[in-house]
């Protein structure tokens, strides 16, 4: 449904008097299948929004090709616009307007006659449960209500492809769960959904497939479970900050701890993140006592140790050397 190859975009940015070229997207390739939720996972500034804006015809790519719903993006952006919906992170409504007025206007922009547009707006109000507040000023809506309106606006013309830029940023957990349900419902109706997120759990729970993007390049692609499968064992997190003082441990202690644990035969790899060491091991149950012993033999007392299953953050860490966790 979406095929992208070599898509690039750079900006000229000015620092004082010097112009520098910022390469926001440095050539990305991916393909999104019909009726799947495809996620772009990456930290802020990775190039997610720039990619989305290029695919939504809002930004001209510097290079590369894209086909969306069978239409060439650069060759016929007007036709692409008829087949896609786009929901920006900032939303797209005036405070003084109302949901109903915006929905009717949105439908009319797709060439729908006034009476039919009113019908579509009514349907959207029902489908996204906006009835309670549809005729109130948008400025009075909660974050979740506003977001549901944004999505309702984005799909009023039943697009084949829907782009969602960080659909759940700033939402409370119930609104977030509700948004996920809405997105899944759209997918089940046959819509292809491309979304960007910097939330690990969102990528994991909502997306059928994801691409991990960092510094304008895709570093990994697959289903969340496939990506995590690269890590066969468990993850152990050793916090070296003393529990009573909560102060940061001495850098020498961090270094020494990392050195000892890396040397242990049962540790596959060891990464240092702030005051913690992240160990990849076959089995946390047997490794934890050994970790304790190895550390205390050198006089290092860890403040806390916990174990968990590998997450997408471990994938991200392995590919980029950095962590994505907030």
């Amino acid at each position, binding site marked *: 449904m979406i095929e992208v190859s070599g898509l690039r975009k750079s900006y000229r940015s000015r620092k004082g008097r010097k112009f520098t070229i910022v390469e926001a997207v440095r050539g990305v390739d991916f393909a999104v299948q019909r009726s799947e939720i495809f996620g772009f996972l990456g930290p802020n500034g990775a190039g997610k929004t720039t990619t989305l804006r290029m695919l939504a015809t809002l930004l001209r790519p510097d290079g590369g090709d894209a086909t969306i719903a069978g239409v060439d993006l650069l060759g016929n952006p007007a036709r692409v616009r008829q087949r*896609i919906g786009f929901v920006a992170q900032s*939303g797209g409504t005036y405070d003084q307007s109302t949901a109903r007025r915006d929905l009717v206007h949105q439908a009319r922009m797709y060439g729908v006659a006034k009476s039919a547009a009113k019908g579509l707006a009514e349907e959207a109000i029902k489908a996204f449960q906006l009835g309670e507040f549809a005729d109130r000023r948008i400025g009075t809506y909660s974050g979740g209500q506003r977001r549901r309106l944004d999505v309702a606006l984005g799909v009023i013309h039943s697009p084949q492809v829907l782009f969602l830029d960080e659909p759940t940023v700033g939402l409370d957990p119930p609104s977030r769960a509700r948004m996920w349900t809405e997105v899944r419902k759209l997918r089940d109706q046959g819509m292809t959904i491309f979304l960007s997120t910097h939330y690990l759990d969102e990528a994991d729970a909502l997306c059928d497939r994801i691409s991990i993007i960092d510094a304008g390049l895709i570093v990994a692609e697959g289903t969340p479970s496939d990506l995590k499968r690269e890590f066969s064992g468990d993850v152990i997190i050793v916090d070296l900050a003393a529990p009573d003082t909560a102060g940061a441990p001495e850098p020498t202690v961090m270094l020494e701890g990392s050195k000892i644990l890396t040397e242990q035969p049962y540790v596959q790899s060891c990464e240092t993140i702030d005051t913690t060491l992240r160990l990849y091991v076959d089995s946390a149950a047997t490794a934890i006592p050994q970790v304790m012993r190895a550390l205390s033999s050198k006089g290092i007392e860890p403040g806390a140790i916990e174990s968990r299953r590998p997450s997408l953050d471990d994938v991200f860490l392995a590919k980029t050397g950095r962590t994505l966790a907030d």
Partner: protein
Amino acid sequence: MKLARDTWLTFQYEAGQLVHSPVSIAISLLQPVTYLLLFTPFLKSVMGSSSYGGAYAIYVPSLFAAMGIFSGLFAGFAMIAAIRRGVIGRLRVTPLSRVGLLLGWELMFVALVAFQAVVIAVVAVIFGLRVPLINLLLALVLLSLMVIIGVSISYVLTIFVPNQTVLANLTNGVTEPIALLAGVLIPLSVAPLWVRRVALWNPFAWGANGMRAVFQGHVGAPVVWQATIILAAIAAIAVLVSSRLINREIA
């Protein structure tokens, strides 16, 4: 016709937002009404006008010109707000005609300034202005063309000067000389020759002079048709160039 439909649709939507915030429209009328009531007496004595009606016939077109110049050239700030809100992005991913979108916005400002001008005219009539309706309508045509030129310039500046502080300073810096050289305080007829020569290059000065001739009953004066042609031509070019520049990012 798609362009006409999309222009109308955009105009309706944007004007609808204005209608639903009547307080801001009322506030926007405060300054021109204040000038009308407090500045005209000064002008009456400076220009040696025999009656208030005469002074209003001189000052009301100046005030129209000032409203057109300032509303038009500061239009970009409303666009920045709409961009921040994401409204522009939402409209631009629809198949809406790009030129229709721009024209709809321009017309919204035209309607707003025309409404303000009518209010000013009504107040001035109450205080002694006498002007035939047809002359007033002709002045509104000139004023509308001035607004279109101003909005187009402002949009282009907004696109190319993303820094809002710089944009504000730049807009102020451009607007003040344009306004003074259009004779918005004292008519250009009393300006020294060199000022009048410079003002020949200011389309807004043509607009102000044309409107002033109309208000003084000289509909047939050459400056009226000259101003109409000059403003119409520049407005057409401004709309074409600005829509081209604004939409350059993607076809």
